[in-house]
């Protein structure tokens, strides 16, 4: 059986104001199974958010897209935005980064959660309001708060409301873009707990987009690490942490302090990601990599199977047999 969501050869370019274009997503392949908890990890500008917005068909007019996004086998990108829109919110929903911006400040939270229900012809009037109340209760907001305005909500409450809005039409996949980034750890734990319980109750596939490796480590089954618009490595979260096959993955974990690893050195990754408005030659990570060798500056490494359900794009894997460590 094919995966619920298959992204294949996805490319996204943005026309730049001064001429030229920015190749933000460069041939991304990702599969997410039904009910799976998938992490998409990377630093700012790596293309993770752009890739998610493409799946939602929410790119600005200066974007152009190539590749396929298959939802239960159907290529929803076949006719661009037009063929995405029937699936948006019904099959794929998204919780956006910065919940403040997800709401119109002059409309009540309840009426905004009601909107997708009305627009998609699911419920109207009293029935819709009852559903809104149920949704709010489900995400842990007292239903009488529906009549309040977004600014009367705390950051955590707003994020809960945004999640209620996202699950309103019963999607199969929930894309959560940095859902806890601006929140405190305790609220972050509450939101993650909520997302996990919703995923379980509604058999949702959860795609967690974040720069925060420990969050992915605690929440997800599998993850893809993105760098410079490409997938550098993907596999089970356990394999990514314990047997990384791309130096970027290893170095990213090493740059993340852990609460209890007191004596261990935390090392930053030198350099900065490459500019994406120019052609890239060789491995995009090679200028920052601690293990680069002859082919890296010139030959672009392809994603290669390095273990069960584990792929990596690194020349170190060219001569190493499956299962051996980097």
């Amino acid at each position: 059986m094919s995966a619920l969501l298959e992204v294949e050869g996805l490319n996204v370019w943005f026309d730049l104001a001064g001429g030229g274009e920015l190749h933000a997503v460069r041939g991304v392949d990702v599969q997410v199974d039904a009910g799976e908890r998938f992490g998409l990890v990377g630093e700012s500008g790596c293309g993770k958010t752009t890739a998610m917005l493409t799946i939602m068909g929410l790119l600005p007019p200066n974007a152009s897209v190539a590749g396929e996004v298959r939802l239960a086998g159907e290529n929803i990108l076949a006719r661009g935005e037009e063929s995405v829109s029937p699936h948006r919110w019904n099959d794929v929903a998204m919780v956006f980064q910065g919940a403040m911006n997800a709401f119109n400040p002059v409309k009540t939270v309840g009426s905004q959660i009601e909107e997708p229900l009305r627009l998609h012809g699911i419920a109207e009037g009293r029935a819709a309001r009852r559903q809104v109340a149920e949704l709010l209760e489900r995400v842990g907001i007292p239903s009488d708060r529906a009549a309040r305005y977004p600014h009367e909500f705390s950051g955590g409450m707003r994020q809960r409301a945004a999640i209620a809005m996202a699950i309103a039409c019963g999607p199969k996949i929930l894309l959560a873009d940095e859902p806890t980034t601006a929140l405190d750890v305790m609220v972050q734990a509450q939101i993650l707990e909520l997302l996990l319980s919703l995923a379980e109750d509604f058999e949702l596939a959860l795609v967690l987009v974040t720069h925060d490796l420990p969050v992915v480590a605690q929440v997800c089954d599998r993850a893809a690490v993105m760098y410079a618009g490409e997938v550098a490595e993907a596999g089970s979260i356990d394999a990514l942490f314990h047997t990384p096959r791309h130096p970027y993955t290893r170095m990213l974990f090493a740059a993340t302090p852990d609460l209890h690893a007191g004596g261990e050195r935390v090392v930053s990754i030198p350099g900065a990601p490459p500019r994406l408005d120019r052609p890239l030659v060789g491995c995009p990570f090679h200028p920052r990599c601690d293990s680069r060798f002859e082919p890296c500056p010139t030959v672009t490494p392809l994603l290669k199977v390095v273990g069960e359900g584990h792929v990596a794009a690194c020349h170190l894997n060219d001569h190493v047999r499956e299962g051996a460590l980097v």
Partner: protein
Amino acid sequence: MSTAVQGAAAAEGVDVAKSGRPGSIRRVVFGEPQALIGLAIVAAFILVALLSPLFLSQDPKTKVGPIFEHPSVSHPLGLDGGGADMVRLLIAGTRVSLLVGFAAAFVSALIGGTVGLASGYFGGKTDIVLMRITDYVIVIPDIPLMIVAAALFGRSLTNIILIIGVIYWTSTARLIRAQVKSVRERVYVKRARALGAGNTRLIFKHVLPQVMPLLIANTVLLVALAIFAETFISFLGLGDPSVISWGRLIENSFTDDAILNNAWWTIVPPGVCVTLLVLGSTMFGQSLEDALNPRLRVGHLSVRRFRMRPLKGKLESE
């Protein structure tokens, strides 16, 4: 210094190309046709004013032919009710109109900028008092005030400049105040204060440079207002009797019964000049302000239509 620290930063990428300061007036001028056209019109008039000594070897009011002579090759815009050449009168008028326009706008910007800066930066009681004064000045009707002031203080060019300047500073003050209030709260201003910088330094090094482009844009708009006001005052006969301005020219042609003589060439050209200059500086000032005033910036609503494009090499396989 550990090698880890050094290595980390040294390689953190200095890939970025050097580029100029952000948010500059230059970018607006060359980025928007409206700004460029406006600037060109204003510049053309300034050029005429600067070159005027070349044309005005003798007093432009000198009688060179019969009164209300029709336009001809030697006098392209004809002669006025005193037999003086209209082209030379217009050139002389350009000088005065520009002088009044720019000087009065400068006075306005100086008062308005100072009030706005003090009000926005110091806040509290200073703010309340200054804004109350501004409110009072706003509600005074400007044209009657100009008439009264011109009658009271005499009709010299300096007085006209000061009167116009003192009337038009209020909008500048409010605009600058709002902008200063937001700049004052920026982290880099707080940081400078934390390291011990005093108010003088904060105002002149951090706050003023940030609001300066907006102040300049606003001043350009004031030039248009001031030129119009001067024309109006002169037309009412309250201008300086010793100088020639476009308003004076229009007023003269009325008093000399130019309309009865069908001498359109004595009225239309000064009117066109005023209109052009006001239009030019408004276009320039407005596009500057649109680009620089954060309150006017409106986000574009996305229509959410992106393009699909084929991937090279993938075409054949499909």
